[in-house]
């Protein structure tokens, strides 16, 4: 008796707390003309610089994104006036050159030629901040995420991880977290910024779903503002309450989607307690 009453009330509350009921629905979404998507990365870590080229799909197609082979790709370090050509090796659609290692403060020009079309972009690698450590601040027992309790999640689901810098920042800093859990990339584009005016005392933490003994690898990539703006635009398109979802302005010419980002990379790993 007691249980059934409890359940009734819990169901009632679950409704009230807006978990509602969910189902898949069919929506007639328009077809779109395929466009090129260019992801250009210049990293300060050897072997991490690459350019990946793919194409867009209609919403209802399988997510096997067509890669674009046979493009001509160069990246120029305009500070040193040095040109590197990137070529397709083992992975189709991914163009690399092991000699290309980014240097902070340098400006890079990307040129991609596909058929007779040229796409270009410029990006400067910021100096960024030096990461000292990342610390786990466990929120065990709080149940659910920061928002509304999901009602099904187990205690300790959400782990709070906070980065600490060595040098206090004096300028506006833009960065992106790339997070791996047990060597698997987590599905999140997490752009962040620290404004100079905010001071260094308040560092916004990361919230990650993890359990005890999971290995969390955090890559903190400092990027320039226009790259941040693009990534931020993408991240705003997720979630239920995005104000005005739309395609953010890419920093690549000629109507291609994607970005060209010269970034510094700093990796830290922790094991969840």
């Amino acid at each position, binding site marked *: 008796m007691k249980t059934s009453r409890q359940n009734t009330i819990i169901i009632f509350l679950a409704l009230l707390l807006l978990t*509602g009921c969910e189902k898949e*629905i069919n929506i007639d979404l328009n077809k779109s003309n395929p*466009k090129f*998507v260019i992801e250009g990365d210049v990293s300060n870590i050897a072997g991490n610089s690459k350019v990946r080229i793919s194409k867009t799909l209609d919403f209802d197609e399988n997510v096997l994104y067509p890669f674009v082979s046979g493009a001509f790709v160069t990246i120029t370090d305009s500070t040193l006036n040095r040109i590197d050509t990137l070529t397709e090796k083992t992975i189709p659609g991914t163009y690399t050159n092991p000699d290309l290692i980014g240097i902070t403060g340098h400006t890079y020009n990307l040129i991609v030629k596909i058929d007779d079309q040229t796409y270009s972009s410029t990006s400067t690698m910021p100096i960024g901040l030096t990461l000292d450590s990342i610390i786990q601040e466990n*929120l065990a027992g709080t149940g659910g995420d920061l928002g509304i*309790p999901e009602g099904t999640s187990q205690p300790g689901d959400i782990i709070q991880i906070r980065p600490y810098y060595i040098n206090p920042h004096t300028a506006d800093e833009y960065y992106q977290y790339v997070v791996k859990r047990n060597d698997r990339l987590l599905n999140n584009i997490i752009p962040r910024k620290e404004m100079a005016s905010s001071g260094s005392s308040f560092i916004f933490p990361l919230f990650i779903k993890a359990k005890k003994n999971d290995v969390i690898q955090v890559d903190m990539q400092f990027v320039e503002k226009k790259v941040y703006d693009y990534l931020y635009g993408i991240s705003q398109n997720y979630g*239920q309450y995005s*104000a*005005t*979802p739309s395609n953010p302005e890419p920093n690549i010419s000629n109507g291609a989607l994607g970005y060209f980002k010269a970034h510094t990379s700093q990796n830290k790993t922790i094991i969840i307690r």
Partner: protein
Amino acid sequence: MKYQIIIIIFILSFTSTLLLAQKYTISGYITDNNTGEYLIGAVVRVKNSPDIGYGTNNYGFYSLSLAKGSYELEFSYIGHLKESVNITLTANQRINVTLKEAPNKLQEIVITSNNDNANVRQSQMGLQKLNVEVAGKLPVIFGEKDILKILQLFPGIKSGGDGQSGFTVRGGTIDQNLILLDDAPIYNASHLLGFFSTFNSDAIKDVSLYKGTAPAQFGGRLSSVVDVKMNDGNNQNFDVKGGIGLISSKINIEGPIQKGKSSFLFSGRRTYVDAFLKLFDRFKNNSLSFYDLNAKLNFKTSDRDRLFISGYLGRDALELNKRMGINWGNKTGTVRWNHLFNSKLFSNSSLIYSDYDYKIDIEDPHNEFSILSSIRDWNLKQTFQYFPDSKNEWKLGYNIIYHTITPGLINFPSATTMSNEEPRNGMESAIFATNNWQATNKLKINYGIRFSSFMVLGGSDYYNLNADKNVIDTIQQAGPIENYLNIEPRLSLSYSISESCSFKMAYTRNTQNLHLITNSVSGSPTDKWIMDSNNVKPEISDQVSLGYFRNFDDNIYEFSVESYYKSMQNQIDYKDNADIQVPVIETQLLYGKGRAYGLEVLLRKSKGKFTGWLGYSLSRSEKQIEGINKNHWYPARQDRTHDISIVGMYEISNRWNVSAIWVYRTGNAISFPSGKYMLEGQTVWLYTERNGYRMPAYHRLDLGATYKLKEHKLFNSELSFSLFNAYGRENPYIITFERSGNDPNQTVAIQTSLFRWVPSISWNFTLK
């Protein structure tokens, strides 16, 4: 030049009325015999010339002037017995009338109009009046009757949907509705995520909603004015009533302080969901509740003076995991003084305070802070009502509001207050004049003008932005930053073809100086109110409307068709990929124009055992803003093509009443992805146009019944049953797009819906 002519015409028409031949004036108050409540919109009719009918004002006062002679006057009000008085007019006379309630009120329920054919005869267009009693007869979610929800069943007034608090009127946004409770603006009229409104219907006397066509004494919003009047309190007898419902209970106590002269009213309502929550380990750290308190005092200090003091306090609190708390609420207070200078000049002075705030508290081991936002008004309003003769009724006055908006004050307990933005102040003032003129027996004209000004006061930071919307410098000055002046003409006329048929037309200009910045169609407690600034200009709308009104079968059936076209300037929308959390929100906003047009049809039966109505609106609302949707026109989020409401109530017996509501609405306009691509190893969406898609249509059937229980020697009571969403339609609340759980190679649309089949029961009583 155009305006100068308007002003001259005004002065001429006003003075000309003063020069008319001397007549005698009959004036007085009309009150309810049983409660002493002033009856708003009660009708005085001169029997000898039945074409002339006069309504009482918001304080139950009437005044009319007639030539010397003998007359029979008839006084009437819905649900009350008519009263006739014979007079011989040789001097000015005061006639105060009390009307008795009709013995079987249930059979006499008239939903709106007080006069049988008032809908046809009045010059006012786009007006929806609501009698509070009808609220008790209709099914509502959780058994809580709600006047705002019932207004949303009339054409042109559209609900935001389940779990959404606001409503939109004629293609406007939710912030374009001015909601007044005893003249005090309510900035967030919803409780508990929009399932309830802040109006406890036990304490409410009268509700009028003007669909953008309000006369000149109202101003400050583009789309509508909802004028809610609280009961004054019974000055004859003590009266206690209340209700016990599934999730909340309420009580209403009123009575005389000095019989016939003064009275008090106290009304309270509270939910008890949080008490249940405490019982369970899983939820004991969460809470969700709201309460409302209404109070009013009313004194007749002399034959010519009346003083009203009323207040409202309501608050919602939501606590999650003892770590995050959100609470919000309204506080209002109104002091009003009615004074009768003479039988032709009535004055009302109001001093009004209104405060809306919301507070978010975050507490975790490393961060503890709170964010406080608020909007506070001090408001002085003076209206003179002048009845120069039997054909004119003037209202003249002014209104001054001092606004203070705190846009999000962040407070760290460990440190000193850190503020993103300091409170901003603004002074909104207006003077107005309006006349209700019976030009001929067939033609009624209501014309008026409102001069409004908004002064953006200095003392806090304002920002100059460049073309890319980046802050280039900060303006810090003590004096006013800007002063916006507007002239708002209003005109509404009706031509009676016969006793039961009329044509009406209206033109109205409205302006708006406060704007709600929201990322949803219908609002959330964390939406941001802003004022005009150096960047944000007053919104302006010009609305033209035309209507045809026809009653059939001795006014048993009412039929009307209204159409409107509204053009709007300085409309605000977010730029693409707006960041809604930046400190300077103006950097995320773009401005442009809007247009809204539509057709509204209403067929209603308001007498007999079966009553109800059928409402339909066909409408469109669009915006064009440079920088959005490639500068092309795009649908506003609240744009809905079709909106249908069918409402029926049937009195089976003296004990049983049943009712049903069916609604159908086109889904809101929304931006959905048209494709997808891969970025950083993940699927992201490709968008094409702003609001180019539609949510699925919304429809729902609600059923209700009330049963009058056997009279007890101490109290009368009734049970209300209702079933919300009777056929369990899964109406969309949110639609998201994600990788399919079953097949990771597929992307799917996921719809979240809220309530299906919500039954409820409540017990309402009145102590004898």
